[in-house]
């Protein structure tokens, strides 16, 4: 007996819209709730399983717990990998690949090794302090490299959690910090999902110390391409090496473009990008996925540099397939996944018949 499984959560849009698409393809998908998996560490009793792993629900807004939550999730992914060694389980995205992409630092290094253009990581010349980055070290490095604006991203974060954009004028000492993180007197460092701008060092420095303590990567803050006064980047959903969906994420008045921050999504055609550029982006996305065997579905964030329009990969996410602008319209992404499930079921049936 063969069975397709979503390891996820009921009543989430990911589950609902994949189930809808599967029903349209005439295939059934069984939901295994993350809570059940964490209790029993087992999947349905079938000879052959195809498992799609959706992210578990993280309800805490505490950024201090980010690494702890990520560690727990990594552990579960390891358990899933182990299970596949003793049972016939195929994954839509391999758990080890999902884990690999959760680590922004490792992902960036892998893409760079593959010769792919990524947003540049600012490397520290001072490796003292056990590799832990302090505010003073960061500012000194910015001064030394003449970089006046950077992005600071928790290595294990997802979405815009803890992501901050810092400007520092080494000549005048002026600072500006754009972030969704906030220091709460009771809860400590929290993610507010609301972008704020701080301009006073007395507000910025304590916040920055807490953010850097999360283990962060530092990236160059590139001026992004602009459409009608709004800067934007792109989110591609790439499945089986093909770009299924490409969306622009516009931001007016803030450098952080994330669909969870009330940024404005825009159809790619409205940007008027050239055919050549779109083709370059598609090839780049395909090459990124190739760098991760076992990755069938990925969300890829792409920056287009203002002026040059040079594409650079910001980050990749093995669970970046939920795009509201798709599910509420043609549901292309989950329909493709439903066809992948259907094909798998048919192939397995064929193998059995032979």
């Amino acid at each position, binding site marked *: 007996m063969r069975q397709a499984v979503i390891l996820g959560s009921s009543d989430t849009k990911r589950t609902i819209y994949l189930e809808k698409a599967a029903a349209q393809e005439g295939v059934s998908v069984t939901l295994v709730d993350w809570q059940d998996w964490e209790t029993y560490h087992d999947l349905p009793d079938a000879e052959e399983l195809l498992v799609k792993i959706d992210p578990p629900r993280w309800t805490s807004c505490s950024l201090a717990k980010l690494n702890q939550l990520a560690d727990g999730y990594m552990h579960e992914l390891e358990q899933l990998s182990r299970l596949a060694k003793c049972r016939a389980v195929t994954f839509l995205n391999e758990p080890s690949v999902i884990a690999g992409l959760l680590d922004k630092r490792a992902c960036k290094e892998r893409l760079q090794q593959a010769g792919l253009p990524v947003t540049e990581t600012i490397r520290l010349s001072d490796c003292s302090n056990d590799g832990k980055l302090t505010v003073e070290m960061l500012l000194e490095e910015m001064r030394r*490299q*003449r*970089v*006046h604006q950077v992005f600071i991203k928790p290595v294990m974060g997802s979405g815009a959690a803890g992501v901050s954009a810092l*400007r520092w*004028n080494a*000549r*005048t000492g*002026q600072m*500006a910090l754009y972030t969704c993180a906030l220091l709460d007197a009771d809860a400590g460092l929290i993610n507010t999902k609301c972008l704020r*701008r701080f*301009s006073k060092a007395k507000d910025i420095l304590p916040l920055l110390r807490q953010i850097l303590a999360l283990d962060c990567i530092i990236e*160059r*803050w*590139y*001026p*992004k391409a*602009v459409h009608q*006064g709004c*800067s934007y980047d792109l989110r591609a959903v790439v499945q089986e090496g093909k770009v299924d969906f490409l969306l622009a994420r516009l931001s007016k*008045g*803030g*450098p952080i473009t994330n669909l969870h921050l009330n940024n404005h999504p825009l159809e790619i055609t409205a940007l008027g990008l050239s055919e050549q550029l779109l083709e370059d982006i598609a090839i780049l996305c395909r090459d990124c996925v190739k760098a991760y065997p076992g990755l069938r579905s990925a969300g890829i964030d792409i920056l287009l*540099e*203002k*002026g*040059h329009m040079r594409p650079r990969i910001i980050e990749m996410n093995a669970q970046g397939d939920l795009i509201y602008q798709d599910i509420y319209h043609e549901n292309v992404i989950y329909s493709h996944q439903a066809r992948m499930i259907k094909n798998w079921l048919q192939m397995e049936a064929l193998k059995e018949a032979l």
Partner: protein
Amino acid sequence: MQFELVEEDNINVSKQTYYYDYEEYEDDKGPATMIEEILAHDAFPKLDELVIGNWGAWDGSCQPIIDGIIENKEKFSHIQKVFIGNMDYEACEVSWILQGNYSKLWAAMPQLRELTIKGSNELVLGEICHEELEALTIICGGLPVSVIQSIQNAKLPKLKKLLLFIGVENYGFDGNENTIKELLAHAQFPELTELGITDSEIQDELTEVVLDSKFMEQITTLDLSNGTLTDKGGALLLEKIPQYPNIRKLDIHHNYLSVNMAKKLEALPIEVDASEIEQSWAHGGRIYMNALLTE
């Protein structure tokens, strides 16, 4: 040097932004190297509009650019429109843009029709005397009184459009509603048809000042956008605008009006943009509202 084509009609490129990207800045390019590179650019002689983007604006004033234009004024004699500081927040905080002294530019560019300046840090306009200038726009997070006084005393007989971002105290606006009252009382712009007093956190008070000014008799476009206009200012507009049949366009986008007031204003028999209604928020017993550009 980056050349960003802004507009083209397939034959003549008329407008182009010149700027340095981060790699060039890190390779020691800056305002001192820009004019020479602009003059060497093939397309430059065909331009009628010169737009200067980022020159490393947080690190150095644009004075070498202004001085370069003045020193090479004959080579810039075909330029009718100048915009210095065309960069968004991705490139530089507006309040960090180091502007310059334009005192000598007026005489050096007698053909100039439009001047747009972004940023007010270190901005000096000096004694403004220009026979041909038709449009003056200053975009900033806080406009110093010294700059407002230069405009107040300006001799601009052909000025048709004046657009000022007033901004906030933290970023350079060191005046109040009386500063703008004096500006509008003393300024002599007989040809003015477009007046913009925008981006203020005292937008209601400035609305009252503008509505009581002599320019209401002559302008056709009134711009009070991007500020903290509430129903108080909205009610004044509703009462006064019908008294001026010369007003054909009212721009009050980005405001804190009630939906009801916005609808009433949009029902005026003129072109009205009352879009982008913002929500104020309360904290510690205070109501907070932001003008659009306050950094």
